[in-house]
């Protein structure tokens, strides 16, 4: 079955932390719970300054269909609801909680369904009420993905354990340490959308994880597929193409070809939410790159500042020249460590001066490398040059909106062109033109 997706690149996988078991951290003295931790409308606060909150207590409700609830990661006091640092670099309203150290939890036994006696519809509500979003990076609300319209039957769920971004090992560790949680969530997802088949997709650089998953108690209809190591295989459309040969139509979603993709971390979180009534208040993240003294995989409360993660693990070896929220291919550069861990934080990478190649952007020499690696079969060099020379009106004809911003084109470009930046700028210009 295993096909191959088109294009792709081979960055050095640098999975240095794959042997580091997931460990906990001392709790932070202040948690920053941003109201925008997902794609969609910001959540609405349900608590006031001065309120005492309990662990798992809902503190914000969804601000729309594509929006999420938020829960207190521990017991404490609401200190403020104010603009606070956000990984995007902007200030975004957040609920600031000062933990009291008691970790007193709200009784949620009424929410739990350990015997799985309730209906799939009810599970879906639990997923929404538990604030679960995709944990692979895009942070799309999970219940929305599990709600395909009637006319889009789903025949396959993909458990995405590909983890194709270099350095990141959080999903790898989760597969090794909690295979049953992941498979439990996968079973629930299959029931919710009525899919008979499911595939656990893992890249070949994690043979131990594939082994563990294969030996686990696989629900009926579930297989484990080991895929060749190739970036951006973890991107939904590319993963579906590699596994099934199906091409998600332009502007469409995986459900248009009968597939729903869920990250393995998301599945494990779903399982806990439904069987134990635990909402999403923590996640696994990788601390990596050459600079941290304590690189590894950590279970972190949502809202913990990145600086706390770094300090608790022994700090950095020296001044950071580049901090990345996420993986090196699609992650975002951070100005500092003030921003919090959000539901979509898969990793924090720190590099010292001179550890990343210095780039000098030059004119395109038309080598064609970017075209041969583009998984969307675009002409990245043309898009880049059009934006550079401000020829925005032709961008649509060259399908700029089909770009998934994977960065493969920029990765291979011998002229060091900042293609992804050009493309983002081009997309923004198109939006502006359409708005006029």
């Amino acid at each position, binding site marked *: 079955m295993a096909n191959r997706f*088109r294009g792709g*690149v081979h*960055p050095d996988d640098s999975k240095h932390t794959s042997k580091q078991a997931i460990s906990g951290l001392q709790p932070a003295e202040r948690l920053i719970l941003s109201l925008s931790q997902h794609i969609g409308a910001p959540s609405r606060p349900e608590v006031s300054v001065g309120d005492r909150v309990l662990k798992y207590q809902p503190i914000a409700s969804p601000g729309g269909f594509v929006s999420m609830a938020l829960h207190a990661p521990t017991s404490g006091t609401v200190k403020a609801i104010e603009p606070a640092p956000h990984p995007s*670099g902007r200030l975004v309203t957040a609920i600031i909680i000062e933990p009291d150290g008691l970790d007193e939890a709200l009784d949620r036994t009424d929410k739990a369904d350990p015997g799985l006696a309730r209906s799939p519809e009810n599970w879906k509500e639990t997923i929404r009420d538990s604030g679960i979003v995709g944990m692979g990076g895009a942070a799309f609300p999970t219940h929305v993905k599990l709600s395909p319209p009637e006319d889009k039957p789903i025949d396959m769920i993909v458990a995405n354990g590909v983890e194709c971004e270099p350095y990141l090992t959080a999903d790898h560790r989760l597969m090794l340490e909690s295979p049953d949680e992941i498979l439990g969530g996968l079973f629930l997802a299959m029931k919710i959308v009525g899919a008979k088949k499911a595939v656990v997709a893992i890249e070949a650089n994690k043979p131990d994880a594939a082994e563990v998953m294969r030996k686990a108690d696989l629900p009926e209809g579930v297989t484990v597929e080991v895929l060749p190591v190739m970036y951006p295989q973890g991107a939904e*459309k590319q993963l579906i193409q590699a596994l099934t040969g199906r*091409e*998600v*139509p*332009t*502007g*469409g979603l995986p459900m248009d070809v009968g597939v729903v993709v869920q990250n393995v971390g998301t599945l494990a979180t779903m399982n806990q939410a439904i069987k134990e009534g635990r909402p999403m208040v923590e996640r696994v993240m990788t601390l990596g790159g050459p600079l941290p003294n304590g690189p590894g995989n950590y279970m972190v409360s949502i809202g913990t500042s990145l600086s706390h993660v770094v300090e608790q693990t022994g700090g950095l070896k020296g*001044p*950071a*020249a*580049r*901090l*990345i929220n996420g993986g*090196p*291919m*699609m*992650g*975002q*550069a*951070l*100005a*500092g460590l003030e921003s919090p861990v959000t539901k979509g934080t898969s990793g924090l990478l720190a*590099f010292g001066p001179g550890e*990343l*190649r210095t*780039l000098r952007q*030059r*004119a*395109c*020499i*038309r*080598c*064609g*490398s970017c*075209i*041969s690696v583009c*998984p*969307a*079969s*675009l*002409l990245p*060099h043309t898009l880049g040059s059009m934006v550079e020379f401000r020829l925005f009106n032709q961008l649509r004809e060259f*399908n700029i909106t*089909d770009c998934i*911003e994977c*960065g493969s084109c*920029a*990765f*291979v*470009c*011998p*002229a*060091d062109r*900042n293609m*992804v*930046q050009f493309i983002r700028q081009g997309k923004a210009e198109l939006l502006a033109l359409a708005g006029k």
Partner: protein
Amino acid sequence: MSTVLAPSPHVRSSVTIETAMYGVIIALLPGALVGACFFGLNALKVMTISIIACLLFEAMVLKIRGMDMSPLKDGSAVLTGLLLAMNLPSNIPWWMVVMGAVVAIGIGKQVYGGLGYNPFNPALVARVFLLISFPVAMTSWPVPKPLSFSLDTITGATPLGAMKTSLMMEGNVGAAANMSLVDPLIGNMGGSLGEIGALALALGGIYLLVRKIITWHIPVSFLATVFGMTGIYWLINPELYAPPTFHLVTGGLMLGAFFMATDYVTSPVTGKGMVIFGVGCGVLTVFIRLFGGYPEGVSFAILLMNAATPIIDRYTRPRVFGYPTRKEARA
């Protein structure tokens, strides 16, 4: 602590313009060495003058344009200089080499805005300019003298030139019909520095393929077309047409197929486009060689196809992910 807020991706492959350009230069060295072995000091002189003149003139233009000198180091001017030299006879006067360099860098490259913007291969523009301006100097070839380093030279014809003459005088291809391939393979024949030594040039070409600096598309389609077409004509009438193997190892075919036609800037960007480009180069080369006024057609063929590159690029755009295939669209 201040960090770089660069856009993603934060890691890049180690391949740069420099690695590509110097890779091609390295690949050219065996061919250049053959030239130096058979034409001695003159060959070295032409190569040195050409490279230095290209660098100097590039520096001058950059200075005039008020730019920094960093493009001097990217290897492209050195490569243009070396390629130009490979396209010249070793006994050409030094000032013609300098003129060629001026045309290559000035008219071939910088008037368009420098590396990446030029529509034609700069070294070929210069070669054709010299060929048209100084036809005698450009077509009197020194007879090779293996490993002799004397500066005086006797001139003679290239195998392709001899064939053309024989065709016109005798009405048949003459010696070309059953010439041994050993001499052209190792380089023991008249011609420009990079026209002889097919074996050494092909070796460099293979190096480029192995290092993935070029892909197979252009050289293979170019060589296969020349071989196939000349083969058909030869089968039809071996009196009038030389064997395909002769065409493969003589003239600037190896140099053209591996080093000139593959120039990134002036050739198409997709595999499909490159194949069309290579076939086009092959067809034009054969037509010029067999029916044109010049004995050799590689340079003209490549330049003509350079002009066709934008059109080829336009009609070979890949089907974008998630769009119907042409067949699906019709259904």
